[in-house]
């Protein structure tokens, strides 16, 4: 049996499992506080605002705003060559939550900060589906 080198594999906890389970279905899933209604960052055990511990998973639109972007010339991921475009995506429903994604199709070439993008998830690499910027034709 051979093991292909693969991207680092997330080890979910109760807090982050809804995110990764959503990712496997191609959906952006975060948890919403049932006390005050704010969205919680994936790692949060409680709502950062009201500290309520009832957070329910919710499927979001996948719309995000481009917060930051870099083309990385050191290749940190196995099985890829050439510069890698990393983007910081501020979740449209709550831009305080920023998620990292790859842009492997040049969708953000020439884009400006705050450009609206759509986040999707890649086919499984290892056991995980990772966030990617979708080209316009792939938008749900």
């Amino acid at each position, binding site marked *: 049996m051979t093991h292909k*080198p*693969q*991207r*680092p*594999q*997330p*080890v*979910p906890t109760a807090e*982050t499992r809804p995110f990764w389970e959503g990712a496997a279905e191609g959906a952006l899933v975060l948890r919403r506080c049932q006390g005050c209604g704010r969205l919680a960052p*994936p*790692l949060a055990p409680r709502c950062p605002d009201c500290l309520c511990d009832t957070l329910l998973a919710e499927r979001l639109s996948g719309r995000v705003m481009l*917060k*930051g*972007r*870099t*083309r*990385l*010339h*050191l*290749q*940190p*991921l*196995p099985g890829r060559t050439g*510069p*890698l475009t*990393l*983007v*910081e995506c501020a979740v449209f429903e709550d831009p305080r939550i920023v*998620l*990292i*994604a*790859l842009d492997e199709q040049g969708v953000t070439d020439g884009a*400006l*900060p705050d450009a609206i993008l759509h986040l999707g998830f890649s086919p499984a690499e290892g056991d*995980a589906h*990772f*966030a990617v910027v979708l080209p316009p034709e792939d938008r749900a």
Partner: protein
Amino acid sequence: MTVVIAGFGSSTLEKRSDRGIAAFALEAALAALADASIRRDEIDGYVGAPFATNAGSPHAEGGDEISLKTVAGLMGLRLTWGADLYRRYPTDMVASAAHALQAGTCRFVLGLRALYVAPGLDYATGTSGPVFGADQFTKPYGYTTAGARFAARAWAYMTRHGATRDDLFAIVDLSRRHAALNPQAIWRDKPLSLEDYSRGRMIAEPHGLFDCDLPICGAQAFLMCREKDLPQGATPARVTGFSGFARPEALWSMSGRGPADLKTAQLYDGFSSMVWEWLDGLGLTEPGGAPAFLRDGNGEYGARLPLNTAGGALGEGRLHGMGHLREAYLQASGRAGLRQQAMGPALVQVGPYDDSSFVLLEPVNV
């Protein structure tokens, strides 16, 4: 109760070394003791911040990190109090030492920070395998590699405010020129032309090779005490303020100073664009105004706010802010030699945009 930095010491700074991290740590610690005219047996307090921040670090005690337990053992220290501050900065070390001294817990605190480039490892990139906690949202994307997050932020800043790579070069250029007057700076004899800068390979756009500080083997250490305990022969700088980044106003209220009082500023520059953060963030410049402020020469020697006067990390080498603190001490105590600027409140900021702390040092007899 007034607290001072009574002395500072440095090891040699080397790109690679056959000596281990402990050798650098003890070299710096003994230099600090000598500089402050304090005997080893007088040390009863210790503060460190040993975390190696590079993505490829094995976090090996005595390998690429060194903490209180190892230092105390190797130096024969008998401590009343000591602490290592996890993932924090030299500026936080000063604040913790000040607290211990003001509480009367100890009399002489040694502060030590050592860095080391372990051989045979990829410094900048992490490994594959399982990732836990916050890493699960960053490492599978390479986001912890080569300062990608600072590069992504620099892109947004430059795009919003119209800054260019020429503005980044202005920071690198200033660092190299100021490093020329710092005898131990890694880049002291290496001025960099715009052409050389432009030829440097891209690392994480917009940062090229020369926008990244150079990882080195080295250590620096300070000695702190109450002003009334200052040993004869030591030259003090008063610690007049400190604060965390989320409450910068606390730096000014504690010290009774304001941004206009600053005579020098040492701003953290692990990547060149980071210098803009707190020029804007502390209100020294308008939002987006930092590149023009530097382009207009305001950070030069003798100018409005001489900046990173020993070359910063980009000129001296990667000491994770300890070099910035040392230079602020030397400026505030009048010991900066050829680099000496007007004496007065000397600002140190260490850390990134979303997690920094500040210290203000001032001359004692002014």
